[in-house]
């Protein structure tokens, strides 16, 4: 544990000085501020912000982590030649990436709400939920990046796979779900749709947030079913465990790939 914390600490220092992280934080700061200034009330701003978060976080996290890990390859070799174990190094590198990315995001989105005194005017719980979901997505997609980098020796191929992963979860998957809905429109498909939501972390995050925002009426009958499901304790428990699974699964896969990799 101590080794992990030490590695994470030094890596954090490295990334905290990175221009890319600075740009990422500045982006969220400006977008949040602009939405609060010009986007009407806090509620509307939050909704637009949610869409930005669900779109940008997976993409930036995947690309940033993939590029960072490929660039750090020789340094990782050097660290592996030190008397530490691989899982300690994995933990250190993972936390060293996830902490600056998620804390940077949370600060960049959270602070404008404080400045604009918009926390009180929005529905209770919505801003913390948005921050939490954004951070969870960062944890998930950084772990996926670890898996990709450990499995693919070729950095161009790895970057391609990372972008394809984002396209799949962020865009293609919803298209496929819509197609499914259109084809089986005459059937009672609420339950399968619920299942499909759980299989994509971005969808899961979207549904969990939308239901907080009290706009689920827009989702029609399916929305009502979803709402009913997600509002129950079981629903909440399933949503939370699905999100936890979505962190644990990729982390476990990434760790396994990292431990087996020949450097």
């Amino acid at each position, binding site marked *: 544990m101590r080794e992990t914390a030490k590695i994470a600490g*030094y*890596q954090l*220092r*490295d990334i*905290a000085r990175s221009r890319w992280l600075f740009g990422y934080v500045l982006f969220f700061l400006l977008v949040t501020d602009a939405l609060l200034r010009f986007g009407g009330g806090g509620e509307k701003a939050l909704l637009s912000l949610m869409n930005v978060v669900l779109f940008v976080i997976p993409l930036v996290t995947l690309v940033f982590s993939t590029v960072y890990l490929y660039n750090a390859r020789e340094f990782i070799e050097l660290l592996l030649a*030190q008397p530490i*174990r691989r899982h300690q190094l994995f933990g250190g590198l993972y936390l060293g990436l996830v902490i600056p990315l998620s804390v940077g995001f949370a600060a960049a989105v959270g602070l404008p709400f404080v400045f604009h005194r918009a926390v009180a005017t929005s529905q209770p719980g919505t801003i913390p939920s948005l921050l939490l979901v954004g951070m969870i997505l960062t944890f998930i997609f950084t772990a996926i990046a670890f898996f990709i980098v450990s499995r693919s020796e070729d950095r161009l191929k790895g970057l391609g796979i990372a972008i394809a992963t984002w396209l799949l979860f962020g865009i293609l998957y919803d298209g496929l779900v819509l197609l499914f809905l259109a084809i089986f429109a005459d059937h009672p498909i609420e339950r399968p749709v619920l299942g499909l939501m759980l299989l994509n972390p971005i969808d899961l995050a979207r549904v969990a947030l939308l239901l907080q925002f009290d706009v689920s009426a827009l989702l029609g009958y399916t929305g009502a079913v979803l709402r009913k499901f997600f509002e129950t304790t079981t629903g909440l428990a399933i949503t939370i465990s699905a999100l936890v699974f979505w962190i644990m699964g990729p982390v476990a896969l990434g760790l396994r790939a990292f431990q*087996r990799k020949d450097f």
Partner: protein
Amino acid sequence: MISARQVSKHFGRLSALDALTLDIARTRITAIVGPNGAGKTTFVKTILGLTRTYSGSIEFDGARVDDDGKYRSRIGYMPQMARFPENLTAAELFAMLRDLRHADTPIDEDLISEFRLSTELRKPLRTLSGGTRQKVNAVMAFLFKPDLFILDEPTAGLDPIASGILKDKIRSERSAGKTFILTSHIISELEELAEDVAFLHEGRVGFSGPVSELIRTTRQETLEQAIAQMMKRGVAA
């Protein structure tokens, strides 16, 4: 100090090490030579535990190398290519390694002063030139006074002065009883330093023993000629 038995490693269809058996003697400088792709770097990485799935066994002082990695506290490694976190300074890098190694013992900073690095230590590593980074790389291998040094192409990218400083350092540590494994393409460099030589070809050991013996058996005058002779034979075989 190192004894490798029947070590085989495949990358897909490519065989990097093929039932390689080799002993590295204590308190000697062993040069590992061979054409590109002969398995030099793979062998060195296998000693360090960087290679994961291989058959055969490698022992360090009689104990099998494993994931625990404690044995690595006795090894100083200088990798071929020096790339470090861009935004850290060399001083932070040294501090990081010291933290990870729990190095309470006095450290060896001779090379820092001999390379005149002290002003460079506070600059971000990305701003340093390739040669300076290679100097930092060398400093790290010697920092913790290890028993075994593994230097992969140590003088590549160093100017003649720095290269001379490094060679002097290697000699003085050798007389202090340390063991060295060197790989290099520049044979003339090995000629000055090497006592033992292991010639690898297609993942196998073509020759291993004292330099003088290699020169005698190949009936050549210098190590460079002897190795050239081995390479020709290796290719023919």
